[in-house]
Structures are given as C-alpha cells and as structure tokens.
C-alpha cells in the first residue's frame, strides 16, 4: 500500500511536474496583488491630493477588494483563468490514452490520484495567494491604511477570493472529467460556468420581447436564481461587495456549488472510462442530451441578440434567427463531437428535437399560450394594487439607488378605496395592450405600470396603455389619501441627516445655494411637506411651478470613476447625489413664505436684457411643414428651419427674444405629463451662462 509519505511525495512531484505553472501563478499574483496595491495607493493619493483624508477613506473602503479581486479587475480575471488553467493542466492527462495508462498502471487508487492532483493544484494557487495577501496587508500597514478591523476584512476577502477560485477550479475539474479532450473540456467549463444564467436570463429576455404587458419592477425569480445557479455569476457577485463581507446567501451558494462539483468530479473520476481519452465526451450516451440542452437556450439567446443587434422590430426575426441558430449550433456541436465536417448532420434526430424544442418555446411565447399578457389576478386574491404612469419617471426623483428594487420602491399601492377603480383600469388596459405607441400620439392613452401584490405574498407587475382621463381620475382620488401622498412624493423619503446642500431654482434655472442652518432646512422641508400634502391634483397636473428645490445628499450607493495616471479606479462608498424636481407652485405658500423669511425670493419673469440667446427646438411635425408653429409670435430673424428636431433654431435678435419670452413657461411636465402638448421647447443662454431649465411654449 502507498503510505501517507508517498502521498505527500506524489503531491510534491505533481507540483514539480507543473513547476512552470507554479512559477507563473506566483509571479502573476505577486504583480497583481502587492505590486498593484502599491501602485494603486499612489494613484489614489494622487487623485485625492487635495484631501489626504478622503484618499485614506477611499483606500480603506477598497482595500479588501484588492485581495478578493473586487476592486482589482485584472486580479479577478486572473483568479478565473488560474482556476481553469490549474484544473486543465492537472487533469488533462485523462484525455490522453498514453498518460492515462501511465498513471493508472501505478499501484495507486483512483481516488488517491484525484486527491493528489486536486491538492497539488490547490497548493500551487493557495500558497502564493496567501503570501501575496499577507504582503498586501503589510503594505496597508506600512502606508498607515490598515488596522485590526481592516485586517479582519482582508482575511475575509482572502476567504472570498479562495472560495471564488475553488468555485471555478471545481467547475473546471468537473468539465475535464465530463469530456475526453482538453478543447472540449475547456468549452464544457465555460458552458457550465454560464449555462444556468444564460438559460434563465433567456426566459426573461423572451418575456420582454414577446409580451406586450411585460414590465418588470423587481427581479423575477428567474433573474434572482440566475445569480445563484451558475458559477460565473456567483464568481462575479461574490467579489462585488467591496467591503469584504459578501452576502451570506452567495457564500452558501458558492460553497454548495463547489462541494457539488467536487463530489461529482470525484465520482466521475472513479468511473471515468479509460477509453474516453481522445473522445469529445467521456460518456458518449450523454451527447444527444447535452446537444439539446445546449442548443435550445443558446439558439434562443443568439436569436434575441441578433434581433437586438440588427435593430429589427417585432418578433418575426427572432423566430427566424432562433431556428437558423439552432440548426447551426447543432451542426457546430456535431462538429466538435466528431471533428468531421461530413458528419455534422449525422445525429439528425437530436438536432430535430432541438429545433422542435426551440419551435415549441417560440410558439408558447409568440401565441402567449399561458396568457401572460391577458392575465389579471382575481380581485379577491389581491392584497394591494399600485400603478405608476410613465410620466412619474419624469416628474419624480427618488432618493433610492437605481438597481434591482428601484421600481419596486417607486411603485406606490393605491388606497383601499381606489382599489376597484385601479382594478377596472387595469382590466381596461388588457384589451388595449399592444397599443403601446398610444401614449405618445396624444390619443388619450397613457402607458402605465400596474403592480399587484397578491394575498399569497407573490408580487408581480404588468404594463398597459390605459385611458389618461381614467388614470387622472384615479390619481385625483388617490391623492386625497394622505398616506398615499406621503408614499408617492420623494420629499417624504428624504433622509434629512444625509442632506449636504439645498439649491433653489426659479424661472432663470440658475442654482442658488441656500445658506441655511440644519434647523432652517428642517423648517423649510416641513413647510414643503405641508404644501405637498395640501396641493390639489389640478395644480400637480397642470400647474406652472415658480421654481424648484434641489437637494444634494450623501449617496452611499453610487460608484464614481477616477482616473489617475495608469490606474483607473472605481471609488465606491459615499458620494454626493443630486435630487431635483421638488417643484414649488404658487399655492405652496408655506414654502414661499419660509423662503421669503430666509431672504430668498423667486423671480417670476425673465428680463430680456439678461438673455444672450434662445435655442428653439421644434417638433418633427413643424420641421416637416417647414414653418414655425402658428401659436408662436412672428420671429423675423428666423429665415431657415433646421433639418431635424434635434438641431435648435438659434435666436439672438433682441426683438425676437423679447417676443418669444412672452410665450415661454416653466418646463415642468406635470404629474401626468400633460403640460407640454406641443412637444416644442426652448433653452436659454443668459449673459451669465446657461440655465438648467428647459421651457415649454405656450
């Protein structure tokens, strides 16, 4: 029997056999970790030269990511490549009959061979990785960045990096054992890494393309699962958290995947048929099954991709391209299996099944066989119903980070007494769905997202074109409810402690910083809240604002990019975000008097003398007609119209400016986007510079 000492000897010999890779891994990790860390620290210091404290904070936040790869993308890629390379070089011998005979003729059990190669690969990576991680931490201490808390985070980041490596390493080993050649092994590793993500995201993509009512306001189950069910997605998301503490669910999923792939690889190794060496697959009976499993989602995904790439409208080309891609992919798979172009149609039955599978899926979506577009929950199964007309996106700005839950946070359930009305509106939308362009052509329809929360806890959404007047009536009734207003208006979601500055805009659109104490800010916002609660629906729909407030507040979610020298760095942590659209109407007396009290008065008219030019953007309709709209005053200086609606007419003539100023109004869309019916607007350049406002024409 082989003793334990022999096992150690075997591991050492295997590491020696792959000495070139051990050297490459050590050198690469050294360059990408301690050396890169030193360069990076210098770059950040240079980028934040004006504020060393900010540099320190930025580095502190990013430091664990320099070990896990979260803030060092090259290291992150290197971990992936190293894991696959180690799996490939470790187990590629099973793809050669000579090598397999050589190894398996020795008096060593297969499980011991597996463990030997597995452990040696792990050592080749883990030892230099651990040493380089320690050097990174040491560099942090030497530069006054690291402390015991950060060290602990770095150790956690080391664990995450190791787990990320293991995830791909095990996937690679499993792929090598599923196949009989190194090329197919690598292809299998890549397919295994992304398969579930591609397949699940494909379903989401198909829904988006085929279903008119599809409008996700939160990640679907498929999208959520896609993160957890493929090694590449897990690998990517594990490192996403720069703090060094990733989501535990991701860690568990990664651990589970690693364990499952390792166990599967171990069992496969024991059963690995020696005759598989040199064949594309180690278990040829799986070939048709794998072909179908690969070709169906791949062809559908490619069909959607090509459709988007060529900018085709409708679903016709997805169907055509999906079928063509399926045939092509089946041929490519057969080519990989057989390496003989003459035999690509050999297994035609499985190819036919693949094409049939694609056809069935496309039929389901094309003819909406499960009634996705026409689905409406039963009234008694509804817990809440919310709606969000498309216009809300241009009227409101919320202090929520854009991301998975943004839509969910900004879709507010209607009060209970409006539920029937909302339900009826949704019902009316089902028959009208498919008429999505209606919201733009002034036909009295409005694209509106409905959000349903069912009594069983499920949440889902649909989007329809619904009657604008019915939506307005529903909104008017809902706005009577104070809680609804509080949920709907962004001012009630502000974290006042995060506010760093307040700006005031009037008709000029030039920001004026409000120099207020925290108490004054609170009083102003209290007054604004009172006014919002008291505002009538008509004002919110059609009212012309006198101005607006804008808030600058700390944003814990945003990421900015700073470039300094050779190093491009993503600065993550706290940065400042601007929220505008806190409109002040004439009826907002509390706000206006508060501003008055603080010494800020809103200008209601623009002095023509202060205007140097006006850019007039005409609608496509006016340009087609080749004349200025009737409602505008005569503008003698305008002799020629632009070629398209994106090029403005520049007016510098004093008389024309004066005339045009009489026709402009504050550029606020109104809560249902009903104010700018003419689709024409102007921008004004003042002698002091451009204002931030756009203006509608009356």
């Amino acid at each position: 029997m082989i003793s334990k000492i022999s096992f150690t000897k075997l591991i050492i010999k295997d590491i020696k056999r792959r000495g070139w890779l051990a050297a490459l891994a050590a050198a690469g990790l050294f360059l990408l970790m301690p050396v890169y860390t030193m360069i990076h620290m210098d770059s950040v210091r240079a980028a934040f030269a004006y504020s060393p404290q900010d540099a320190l904070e930025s580095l502190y936040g990013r430091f664990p990511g320099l070990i896990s790869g979260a803030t060092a993308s090259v290291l992150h890629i290197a971990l992936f490549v190293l894991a696959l390379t180690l799996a490939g070089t470790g187990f590629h011998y099973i793809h050669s009959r000579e090598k397999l005979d050589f190894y398996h003729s020795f008096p060593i059990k297969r499980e011991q061979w597996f463990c030997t190669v597995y452990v040696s690969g792990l050592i080749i990576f883990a030892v230099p990785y651990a040493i380089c991680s320690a050097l990174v931490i040491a560099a942090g201490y030497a530069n006054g960045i690291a402390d015991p808390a950060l060290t602990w985070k770095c150790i956690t980041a080391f664990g995450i990096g190791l787990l990320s490596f293991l995830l791909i390493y095990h996937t690679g080993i499993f792929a090598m054992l599923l196949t009989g050649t190194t090329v197919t092994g690598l292809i299998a590793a890549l397919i295994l890494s992304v398969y579930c993500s591609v397949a699940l995201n494909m379903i989401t993509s198909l829904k988006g393309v085929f279903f008119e009512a599809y409008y996700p306001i939160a990640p679907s189950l498929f999208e959520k699962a896609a993160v957890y069910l493929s090694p590449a997605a897990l690998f990517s998301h594990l490192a996403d958290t720069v703090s060094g503490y990733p989501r535990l669910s991701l860690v568990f999923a990664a651990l589970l995947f690693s364990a499952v792939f390792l166990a599967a690889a171990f069992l496969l190794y024991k059963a690995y048929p020696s005759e598989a060496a040199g064949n594309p697959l180690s278990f040829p009976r799986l070939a048709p099954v794998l072909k179908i499993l690969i070709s169906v989602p791949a062809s559908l995904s490619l069909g959607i991709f090509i459709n988007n790439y060529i900018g085709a409208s409708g679903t016709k080309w997805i169907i055509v391209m999906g079928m063509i891609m399926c045939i092509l992919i089946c041929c490519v798979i057969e080519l990989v299996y057989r390496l003989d172009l003459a035999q690509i149609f050999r297994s035609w039955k499985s190819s036919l099944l693949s094409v049939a599978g694609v056809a069935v899926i496309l039929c389901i979506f094309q003819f909406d066989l499960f009634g996705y577009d026409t689905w409406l929950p039963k009234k008694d199964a509804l817990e809440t119903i919310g709606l969000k007309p498309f216009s809300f996106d241009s009227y409101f700005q919320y202090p929520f980070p854009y991301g998975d839950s943004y839509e969910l946070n900004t879709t507010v359930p209607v009060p209970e007494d409006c539920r029937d009305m909302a339900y009826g509106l949704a019902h009316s939308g089902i028959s009208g769905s498919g008429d999505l362009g209606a919201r733009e052509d002034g036909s009295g329809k409005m694209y509106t997202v409905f959000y349903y929360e069912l009594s069983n806890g499920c949440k889902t959404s649909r989007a329809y074109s619904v009657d604008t007047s019915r939506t307005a009536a529903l909104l008017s009734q809902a706005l009577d409810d104070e809680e609804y207003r509080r949920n709907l208006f962004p001012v009630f979601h502000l974290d006042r402690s995060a506010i760093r500055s307040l700006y005031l805009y009037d008709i000029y659109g030039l920001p004026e910083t409000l120099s207020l104490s925290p108490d004054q800010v609170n009083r102003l916002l209290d007054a604004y809240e009172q006014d919002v609660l008291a505002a009538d629906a008509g004002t919110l729909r059609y009212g012309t604002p006198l101005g607006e407030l804008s808030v600058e507040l700390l944003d814990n979610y945003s990421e900015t990019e700073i470039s300094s020298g050779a190093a491009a760095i993503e600065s993550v942590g706290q940065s400042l975000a601007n929220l505008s659209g806190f409109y002040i109407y004439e009826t907002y007396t509390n706000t206006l008097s508060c501003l008055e009290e603080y010494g800020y008065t809103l200008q209601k008219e623009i002095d023509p003398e202060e205007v140097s030019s006006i850019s007039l953007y005409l609608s496509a309709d006016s340009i087609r007609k080749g004349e200025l709209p009737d409602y505008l005053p005569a503008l003698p200086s305008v002799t020629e119209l632009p070629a398209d609606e994106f090029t403005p007419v520049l007016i510098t003539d004093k008389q024309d400016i004066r005339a045009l100023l009489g026709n402009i109004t504050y550029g606020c869309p109104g809560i249902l986007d009903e104010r700018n019916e003419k689709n024409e607007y102007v921008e004004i350049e003042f002698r002091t510079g451009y204002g931030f406002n756009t203006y509608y024409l009356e």
Partner: protein
Amino acid sequence: MIELKELDKSFHGIRASDRISAVIQDGMIFGLIGANGAGKSTLLRMAGGILKPDHGVVLVDGEPVFENPAVKSQICFLSDSPYFFQNADAVQMRDYYAAVYPSFDRELFDSLTRKFNLDPKRRASTFSKGMKKQLSLLLGIASCTRYLLCDETFDGLDPVVRQAVKSLFAAEMMKRDFTPVISSHNLRELEDFCDNVGLLYNGRILFTKDLDQIKSGICKLQCVIPDIRREQQLLKELKILKLERSGSLLTLTVRGGREDTLKRAESADPLFAEVLPLTLEEIFISETEVAGYDIKDFLY
C-alpha cells in the same frame, strides 16, 4: 499466478475482449500473440488493472487487480507508446517510479542505464523511439515487480538490444520471482523466448499452451511412398492437420511425436522420409486452421 476469468470489454460497440479466460503461470515468460486489433493491449491493460472489464475479473493469487494497490504493486505495465513527463530525464523518471513502486531498485536502474548506454541526464523526449522503449523496459525491470506486462515493447528494439533484454529477463527470473508477459504480433520474435503462449484473435483467445508441449506434439513429415496402398494406410494412421502434395512428395503437418511419426513413415517403405520441427508460425497456422480460423492473411 494471473487468472483471467471470462473477461469482456467493448469500446463503442466493438468487442475488444470476448469472454477471455486464461491462466498465466508464475516463473515463465508468457507470450501473447495476435494480429493488430486482436485485443492484446486491451487484455494487458485489464491484466494491469488499468481497464475495468465490462464482465469478468482478473485475479492475481486470488485477489482482484482493479483498484487494488496491494496487487498492482506487484505488476508493472509498459505501454506500447511509453509516456515520460515533459522535460523529464531518466533520473527524474527513475525517482518517480521509485516513489510509486516500493520495491524499485535504483542501483539496478543506474547500472542498467550505463550498460544500455542511455544518458541519464538527457531529456527522455529527445530519445529515439527505440531508446524510449529501452528506458521504459529498464524502468519496468528496476521496479522489481513480480509481473512485467510488456505491450509490444519489443517492437522497435534492435536485435542486439532485444537479445540483451532477453538475457536480462532470464537473469531476473533466475534471481527472483519474475513473470514477464509480452504481447506482440511478431511470432518469430517470441519463438525462442516464451515458455507459454496465448493466441488472440478478434477478441477471443484461441488457446494458451506450453510452447515445448506444442512443439513436441506436432511435426512436419516429408516423404515419398511409391506404393499407393501403403501411402493410404499411412495417411489413415497419422493425425494429419494439413496435407500438401507436390508430385509424389507428400508434406504433412501431423499431430504427434517426431520419433513415432518417423517410425510410422518408415514402416510404409518410403523412398524418402524425414521429420522436421515446425516454426511457431506454422504451428499457429495449423492450429488456428483446425480451430476454424483462416488466419493466413493476417499472419503474413
């Protein structure tokens, strides 16, 4: 003793071994002969515990070989295309074999490489095909296992080296419990070398026999008997495997001892009679024809 019991093995629907049963006795040189594709390598790989039979079992002293390190430590398998690590020299290969075979004799290996004039520091990948086979053989011999399975290892060796290896095998067999099993498609190569032979054809083993026993039990008789009646009487008395007539000259392949056959021929009052030994090749042609196989095509 290696026992092959009812071994079946198929690759992609092709049956490489078809219910093979045989016994390889210890202390003898066993030759496994057969045409290309007869299943020699498959059989040796199963005997060496590399391949798992689809059916049946390989036993060494009653113990199964597959996934049994204790048994496999008594067997060294030398592939028809030897593998050496990338950039490894003979010394590195020696060290690797020494790590996996507890009985590996480094001194023996070093002395053999000197005798065979193999540069121990030269990369094995730069060796010629014959030198690689020599190195493989030396590693196998120095492993000091009871069984050495050589898969076409002698093909590609020059006559001098082949003779030297035969002497080495003989010396090792004198020294210790050593049983080489040699597969080849070249019958002449094994003729003066093997004690026992097994013939494989299309995945089946036709027979395994002691070579001397085969040779003593079969002979070739050439004679001219003028009396037709006596000639017919002789033909009835002899167990003839094959008969060829060229004019009045009869050439008979006869089962039986040489002396007895000659005595019977002389009793028929021939003009000329002599008994000749058969080459291994002729024996197998005769035997396989008797067994119903027309193997002339693949033997030549």
